[in-house]
């Protein structure tokens, strides 16, 4: 899966949780939680959405690696490679 495909998958999960978010203006290196109005429940639903799309498990301990969009994409790419 290319990085663009992963990014689009993440955006699909994100719009599920925050439909009003304008994904085009998200900066890939800034913390997602600073750019979007997401509380702990939204975060969980977001993670579940990603888990369902990419069929990968995301333990809570790995949450810090998902703080930014780039980090999130790296994390998924690595999880899919093995």
């Amino acid at each position, binding site marked *: 899966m290319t990085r663009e495909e992963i990014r689009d998958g993440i955006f699909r999960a994100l719009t599920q949780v925050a439909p009003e978010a304008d994904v085009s203006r998200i900066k890939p290196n800034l913390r997602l939680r600073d750019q979007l109005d997401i509380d702990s*429940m939204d975060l*969980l639903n977001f993670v579940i959405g990603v888990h369902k799309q990419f069929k990968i498990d995301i333990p809570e*301990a790995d949450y810090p690696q998902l703080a930014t969009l780039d980090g999130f994409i790296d994390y998924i790419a690595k999880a899919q490679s093995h």
Partner: protein
Amino acid sequence: MAEFVMPQLGADMSAGKLLQWRKKVGDLVQRGDIVADVETDKADIEVEVFCTGTIEKILIEPGEKVPVGTVMALIREEGKPAVAEVPARPQDITAALPAPTAPVPTPRLRGTPVAPSGALEVARIHISPVAKKLAADLGIDPVSLSGTGPGGRITLEDVQRAAQSRAATPAAPAELDRATRMRQAIGAAMARSKREIPHYYLSTTIDMTQAIAWLARENLKRSVEDRLVYGVLLLKAVALALREYPELNGLFVAGKAMPKPEIHVGVAISLRGGGLVAPAVHNTDRQDLGQLMRNFRDLVQRARAGSLRSSELSDSTITVTSLGDQGVEAVFGVIYPPQVALVGFGKIGERPWASQGQISVRSVLTATLSGDHRVSDGHRGGLFIAAVDRLLQEPSQL
């Protein structure tokens, strides 16, 4: 030791008056002997005993009216040792009675729901349901139409005709209306709350280290879909603490406090694009954490989809609001009338923590209680918040 209780003497008997004893302490009684006379609504009835033994103690005097099931005398059955102390007469008589089989429906209060539609009064116009639906869909304000149906009722055709003859419709006015209407409704409710309810505020710091550690271990065992957020622990702790301080769980209506037997905790949920609702999680105290999580997630999704049930909007017996995610330290909230308390939770942060002379780093949050002074006072409020704190120290018991 056998108990001789006020018997059930007929389908609809709930209590009976003891007229006289036929036996005294020390008398030997055989199974089937008449031991006492009891007066019911229908008549005086001789009451038999169902065991053989000697009367050990008489607990009820003639003339006393007691509910069915109340222990009236103790009989030491033949060949059974006398029991030293005497079981105390149940203080709360009603506790002795099994809960009535059909759940007594608590009177559903048509309190003004906090949600947007509450404070708004729409002028009464006669319009058929299908016409009203079409008018709403097309963004036509029915007040501007004149009805051709019976009694001047606005019919489907009236709306269709108006739609055809109308100029281009302005950009989605309905959407704008809804947000401002909600803001007005919340404003009205908050103003009333401030005006009528004498608030008192308490806050305390709660060490969440144990809870967070337990939660992390618990979530390892759970699949992603069943993962718990810490908010659920707070919710359950509040619900369980309310069992010990019931005066905080209820409403204040027509000048009187009305504590509620069920515990329905309203959870403040922010709507995307502004606005707030606090629907009830029914019977919060009776749900395990997994159920609470499922119901909480379902409630958030339906709140944001605008498909909450009216009972969820009107049944809350207390409200909890957590602004930790928004980085708020402590929340001193305004009580939602007609409720009598509001619990607020701030964000979890790491803090130096001194106990038994030792300093350590702990994850803590600030919990606050806004209470209605007409119903409870700081003393009881403080004990309640302390109970929430204590419950959060043993997360596995929640």
